[in-house]
């Protein structure tokens, strides 16, 4: 693999900007999804007074 800093050449700002934007989108999606999932499960646990049983079980 070539030197990562050199990849992009004179357009490095555009190339790495695109990869940065993609990374930002992924980070937001993963963090937001996990935070929501954890909060929802904890809400059920709190209301059930212990470990959450999976809905439908």
């Amino acid at each position, binding site marked *: 693999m070539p030197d990562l800093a050199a990849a992009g050449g*004179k357009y490095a700002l555009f*190339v790495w900007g695109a990869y940065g934007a993609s990374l930002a989108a992924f980070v937001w*999606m993963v963090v937001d*999804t996990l935070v929501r999932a954890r909060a929802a*499960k904890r809400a059920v646990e709190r209301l059930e007074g212990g470990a959450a049983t999976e*809905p439908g079980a």
Partner: protein
Amino acid sequence: MITVLANPHRFMAFSRWAAPILGGLAAVLIAWGLVLGLSAPPDYQQGETVRIMFVHVPAAWTAMMAYASLGVASFFSLVFRHAVADAAAKAAAPLGAAFTAAALVTGSLWGKPMWGTWWAWGDSRLVSVLVLFLLFVGYMALRASIEDEAKAARAAEILALVGLINLPVIKFSVDWWNTLHQGESIFRAGGPTIAAVYLAPLFLMGAGYSAAFGALWLVRIRAEIYRRRAAGLALRAAL
């Protein structure tokens, strides 16, 4: 498959193991695609900016897949009143919006050095993808603006179904109109016109993005099902 997963119990059992498997698969495929994409030679015309294609095109593909998922889930929710289908539709929208935003931003970052402009309002491919983004945002805004969750879901699902017409418009926009955006070069009659050295990372990234969408979608549906259970329990406790 859809009928089987319409049962919340079966869906929760399925998604408990499917989500981490898809997540792991996404990490491997994207890592592999990045290695191939960053080590591919510069294109004779695009130069180094060809590397933007490896994040732009998969984001656009996944955004369309997310909208198709939203549309199918909305159809099943509207027609068959499946609660899991409604949760699936609701969960797909923010992910679709994020993938569409990524496609628009990365496309713009490719357009500036190659076309000499960040954006072209007269380009049907660009505008139809912007409409896709607005459909995702509109779907979420509509759901959030109506207090009655059932009514909000119905209204948003109708919007989602109407918006499905935009998918073939995006796909064929480069054939139907003269656009700045290049014509179809991958899924076309006669085979792809892209060199294999670029196709491999493109498909790996496409598969990785799709798997990532699948994993995150399953987790978000699970979260929505838990949220509804919590709301039900809170209501029961208050009575």
